C-alpha cells in the first residue's frame, strides 16, 4: 500500500517535470495558442490531468524567458495569444534532450539487467 502511494507520487513528479519540456518540444515545431497546446498534450496519454494547470506552467516558462507570446487574429472568435519558443528556450530543450536520453538509456540498461536476473 505504502509502496503504491510512493510510486504514484514519483510518477506524478516525473510527469510534472517532463511536462515543461514536452511543452517546449511542441512549441519548437510551431507557435500555438493555449487551447491548442492543451489539446495536443491531451492526446498523449496521462500527460495533462486538468487543463487549467497548463497556465501556471506557461507563466513559469515566460518568467524564465524560455517562451514569449504574440497576439494573432483568429477567423473564429477573439484574437489569440500564441506562445513561441525563444532562443533560450531552444537551448534549454536541447540540453534536456541530451540529459533525458542519457538518463533513459541508463535506467533502461539497469532495468534490462534486472529482468535478466529474474
Amino acid at each position, binding site marked *: 500500500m505504502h509502496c503504491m502511494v510512493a510510486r504514484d507520487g514519483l510518477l506524478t513528479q516525473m510527469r510534472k517535470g517532463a511536462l515543461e519540456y514536452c511543452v517546449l518540444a511542441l512549441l519548437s515545431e510551431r507557435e500555438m495558442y493555449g487551447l491548442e497546446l492543451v489539446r495536443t498534450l491531451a492526446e498523449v496519454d496521462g500527460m495533462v*490531468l486538468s487543463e487549467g494547470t*497548463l497556465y501556471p506552467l506557461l*507563466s513559469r516558462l*515566460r518568467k524564465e524567458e524560455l517562451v514569449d507570446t504574440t497576439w494573432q487574429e483568429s477567423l473564429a472568435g477573439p484574437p489569440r495569444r500564441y506562445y513561441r519558443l525563444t532562443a533560450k528556450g531552444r537551448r534549454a530543450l536541447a540540453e534536456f534532450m541530451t540529459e533525458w536520453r542519457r538518463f533513459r538509456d541508463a535506467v533502461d540498461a539497469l532495468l534490462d539487467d534486472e529482468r535478466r536476473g529474474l
Partner: protein
Amino acid sequence: VTTTENPLVRSYLARLDDALANVPPEERRQILDGIQEHAAAALAEIDDPTEADVRNVLARLGDPDAIAADARERLGITPSRSHSATTVMLWVGAVIGVFNLLMVSTSQVGPIEFAFLAVPVVVLVVLALGLRRHVRQPT
C-alpha cells in the same frame, strides 16, 4: 456573449483569483488571462453555448484551488500562513518578556516578582522549541 459577461465564467475566475492570493501579481495576471482566453476560445467554437457547455469547459479546466496549488508548486511559492503565525508568536513573546523584565527590574525581588521573571523564561523556552520544529519542517 463574451466570456467575461458570462456569470459562470466570471464567478469561476473570481474564485481562481482568490485562490491565487499568494502568487506574485505578474504570474497571477498571466494565469488568470490564460484561463480566461482558454474559456473564450473554447466557447467561441460552439454556436450559442448552453449553460451545460460552459460548465463543461470550466470542469475540464479543473478546480480553482487545484490550479492554485499547482501554481504555488510550479512557481516555488510556500504558503505564508505558518510563517505569519510564528511571527505573531514571537512578537507576543517579546512584548511579554520585555514588560515582565521591566516590572522585575523596577521593584524589589520577592516571590511575586520571581513569578514574573519565570514567565518570560518559560515563553522563551517554548518559543525556542517551536522555532526549532518550524525550521526543521520544510526540509
